[in-house]
């Protein structure tokens, strides 16, 4: 890689070893997926859900933009000089193919319910919550492994570079001097279950509820958002409508906040149009980088932590707020009760998704 930019690389991915029977899945993206599955008791929670519901009643809905494409990029450096053939150890299905990360998770846990990858660029792992919700409401499943995994690859780095959207510094969302994204990689997972009756009595106070989802398309341009954030506004309004909430009832907004000039301007206008200047908000991409197809999942987890810990996370690296955007942008961590939060994920191709999460117990 010969680009002058700041990259959010996850340590230790190269050292991860996949189980022997899943060796065909070996690539950076699935190693990162396994690293994520092994964190914070997540795999244990999935196994408990299998015992409770059965493997055929749990779906897998994961987001990724590029999956294991790095494996193909590397294989193209080892083509047969005479025939042009790819090396014989290259396996497309279980590495490069967009579905491979969901297929890997499915095989890792032995799940046999519906499984799919959502790949709509940077909204992918927010939109998985919507697919899982519908399938649960339709009665096909009782629980779902949702989330997103995206790993570093040259297609993305040189692709965003070709659009002039990559910053040479650590990205500065909503800063007056922002000049582009920092690409990162991440794996984030959540286990979704149907909300029981009387959640206050039947769930722990720390449980997080998915209260609303809104989805829309910009119908405007492949790589520029609608300048007034019209699609973004529709997504936030639809999420509020499903949750039955007024804007003033949202305590914090985790912005998409990529730190490109156009995204933050459009999102800032859309947020101000619905919420006015008083709702605390920040983009956490200054801390994580833009993890693309994993970003919605990562930021859903950050929202869950905000609810559980009563913490509004500051947006890192932002020094001087863009004066054109009239928002309560959180520049220092704030500790306060948090009952309901909204997370925005807007993607390349004009795909938008907003999620609203809330606490079960009183904050």
């Amino acid at each position, binding site marked *: 890689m010969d680009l002058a930019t700041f990259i959010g690389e996850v340590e230790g991915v190269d050292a991860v070893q996949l189980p022997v029977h899943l060796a065909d899945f070996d690539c950076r993206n699935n190693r990162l997926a396994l690293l994520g599955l092994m964190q914070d008791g997540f795999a244990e929670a999935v196994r408990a859900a299998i015992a409770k519901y059965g493997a055929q009643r749990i779906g897998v809905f994961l987001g990724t933009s590029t999956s294991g494409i790095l494996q193909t990029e590397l294989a193209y450096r080892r083509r047969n000089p005479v025939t042009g053939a790819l090396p014989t150890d290259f396996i497309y299905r279980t590495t490069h193919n967009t579905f491979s990360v969901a297929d890997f998770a499915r095989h890792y846990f032995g799940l046999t319910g519906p499984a799919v990858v959502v790949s709509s660029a940077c909204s992918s792992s927010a939109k998985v919550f919507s697919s899982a919700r519908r399938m649960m*409401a339709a009665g096909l499943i009782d629980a779902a492994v949702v989330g997103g995994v995206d790993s570093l690859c040259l297609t993305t780095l040189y692709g965003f570079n070709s659009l002039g959207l990559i910053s040479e510094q650590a990205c500065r969302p909503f800063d007056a001097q922002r000049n582009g994204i920092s690409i990162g990689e991440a794996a984030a997972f959540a286990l979704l279950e149907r909300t029981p009756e009387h959640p206050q009595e039947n769930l722990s106070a720390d449980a997080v509820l998915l209260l609303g989802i809104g989805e829309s398309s*910009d119908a405007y341009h492949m790589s520029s958002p609608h300048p007034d954030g019209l699609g973004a506004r529709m997504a936030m309004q639809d999420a509020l409508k499903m949750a039955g909430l007024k804007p003033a009832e949202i305590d914090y907004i985790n912005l998409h906040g990529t730190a490109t000039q156009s995204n933050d301007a459009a999102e800032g206008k859309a947020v101000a149009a619905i919420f006015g200047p008083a709702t605390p908000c920040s983009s956490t991409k200054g801390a994580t980088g833009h993890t693309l197809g994993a970003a919605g999942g990562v930021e859903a987890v950050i929202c869950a932590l905000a609810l559980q810990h009563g913490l509004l996370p500051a947006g890192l690296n932002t020094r001087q707020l863009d004066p054109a955007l009239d928002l309560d942008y959180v520049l220092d961590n704030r500790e306060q009760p948090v009952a309901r939060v909204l997370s925005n994920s807007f993607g390349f191709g004009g795909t938008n998704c907003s999620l609203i999460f809330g606490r079960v117990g009183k904050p």
Partner: protein
Amino acid sequence: MTLNATLSAYVEGIGLLGPGLTDWPSSQAVLGGQQPYQPHKTILPPPALLPAAERRRSGAIVKLTLATGLEAIAAAGLDAASLPSVFSASGGDGENCHAICEMLASDDRQISPTRFHNSVHNTASGYWSIATGAMTTSSVLCAFDASFGAGLLEALSQVVVDNTRAVLLACDTAYPEPLYSARPIPDAFGIALVLAPQRSAQALAQITVNLTDASADRLDDAALEALRIAIPAARGLPLLRAIALREDQHVVLDYLDGTRLAVAITLC
């Protein structure tokens, strides 16, 4: 499998394009066995609905989804801008991926913005919304060989749970060598279905779907069966064949290893 929910919807419009299959009306006699199937390379029409700049940049998957999707929606007499959409493809644009990987393996890695636009899995969805003006939700899916079944389940769950019409666009395009040897998809093939929650005057058939562990149905015609096997989107052909035959039928469509879709088809 027990405790199995069923999902039901009405098919209001069908779009079809593939090798030797030029549209739904002319393909019904072929699928029904009244006319011989004569495969020839898929002919993709230019995407007339796109603005000139986007039309120049659009690849095969954009042309295929626009052709099949608009055919299905026109047959249903609906406005594309009003419909939520489900795009399901078994992989990205193979030609474009090949060109990018060749460049990234060379000394000049500066891929073009157009190459990058066309590299994302939601290229077709993005161009679709620009072409039709649809600001509705769009689910963009991949499930490798299970992509038709995954798309059908997603579209049905939208219809049933959100009580809305939806359009499914299940499309795949060809892979060039050397990728073809690793993923042998020979040609472009797409099926589009407009699905509705209530019966209307334009409804063709009601479909009721549940998960099953039964084996997927094969097609009697050897060349059509070869097509069904070769291109994942063509795993939906047994459903279209039943509608073409104008008979109430049960078919089993391929989906995941060990899990298939049982579809009961009742003509309207």
